[in-house]
């Protein structure tokens, strides 16, 4: 009984909340400990997966959110203005690099993409998906960029660890080289490239 009461409260605050509700916040508001709050919200989440519902409880951007189900998107769209255009290819590539390699400078992004990224960085900043998170020490003290909470919400991610895994960890130059050694069958294995040479 009390449990169901708690779930009803949870449902109410999820709807009313303007931002993702963290387990901690849920616990505070309902007056539970965090462990129970998590069980409660997972319970409600499961309930919403039952057929015949128009809503879902989703975990994103550091908390739980009540969302409409994607399969009814077209109807909601009729009601509200459709969401804006998706990101361009260039912007999405730039964003992917920032997401996995943050904090990162523009020059570093350009090093990966092999093209200028001023435009994409500007677009992404305007859309609130990335922002300046500081400056790198060193010549010119270049601005470093990172993703925002809106980024997580935009892609429906719980947190950064929820990003799809990369098939190779590209920050590890050794790994790439090892891959090459395998293919170049028993070549003298000089360790590391120019950048690793310290």
């Amino acid at each position, binding site marked *: 009984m009390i449990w169901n009461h708690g779930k009803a409260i949870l449902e109410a605050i999820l*709807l*009313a*909340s*303007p*931002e*993702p509700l*963290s387990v*901690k*916040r849920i616990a505070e508001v309902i007056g539970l400990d965090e462990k129970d709050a998590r069980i409660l919200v997972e319970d409600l989440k499961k309930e919403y997966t039952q057929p015949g519902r128009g809503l*879902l409880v*989703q975990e994103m*951007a*550091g908390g739980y*959110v009540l*969302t*409409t*189900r994607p*399969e009814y*998107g077209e109807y909601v*769209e009729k009601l*509200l203005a459709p*969401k804006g255009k*998706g990101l361009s*290819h*260039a912007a*999405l*590539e730039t*964003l*992917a690099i920032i997401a*996995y390699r943050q904090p990162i400078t523009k020059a570093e992004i350009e090093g*990966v*993409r*092999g*093209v*200028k990224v001023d435009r994409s960085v*500007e677009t992404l*900043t*305007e859309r609130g998906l990335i*922002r*300046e*998170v*500081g400056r790198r020490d060193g010549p010119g003290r270049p601005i470093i960029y990172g993703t*925002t*909470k809106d980024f997580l*919400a935009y*892609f*429906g991610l719980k947190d950064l660890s929820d*990003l*799809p895994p990369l*098939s*190779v960890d*590209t920050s590890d*130059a050794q790994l*790439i080289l090892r*891959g090459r050694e395998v*293919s*170049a069958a028993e070549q003298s294995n*000089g360790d590391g490239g*120019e950048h690793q*040479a310290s």
Partner: protein
Amino acid sequence: MTKQEMALPRTESYTVRLEHFEGPLDLLLHLIRREEMNIYDIPIAQITEQYLIIIRDLSALDIDRASEFLVMAATLLGIKSRMLLPKPPKLEAEELAEEEFEDPREELVRQLVAYSQYKEAAQQLREREELMAKVYTRTLFLEQPEGPAPLEGLNLADLVKAFEEVLKEEWSWREVPREEIPLREKIREINFRISRSPHGVRFRDLFSRGGSRLEIVVTFLALLELIRQRRAVAMQEGIFGDIVIRRVLVTDIVKGETGDDDET
């Protein structure tokens, strides 16, 4: 799948449309895939030749993009010629020799592998984006008043008063018929200016000399919009101090990044 990933018959390399590629790395990856090359052992002469054929016509691109393709062409030719050089006999400084005569393709391979990773990641993000485009939340229905106090040390009336002062100044009040100054562009412009000035821009300096009345008004509207969206903050130090507009700082919003960690 993107256009460039579609298989093209190898005899028709001229049909490869340069403008469909995100850049030289994208094009190289396409070639590697098309020719089924081993990315870790790229036949550099062959790929250079293919690459040069495709970029023969750069006319579809603007200068910036064209030059990116040309820089890669130069890199490829450089690698090709270095690979033709005979390896010098092991000389005095051995470590130096080892480093300098590393496989000349090394750096390019690293770049290509890294790039292909992020390209793939971008594709996955695209799928999520498409899914999320069909999902609506209350969070998105509401304006999100997150971030720092938009006005520091002044109120809206002060800002309006400052604007009136600006209007009183001498402006060339020539009215240009049907002049159009998109608000969006102004917002972008102001945002650009404040993002480049860590200490902010003086309110007065936002208004360019010789602007029309319309431009001044649009500038002010753009500023209000930026403040409303919490992308800019107006500050005033002291009662008669200059009003300064600055971007929203990292320290203002950093807590948003880490989710609920900051609550602990």
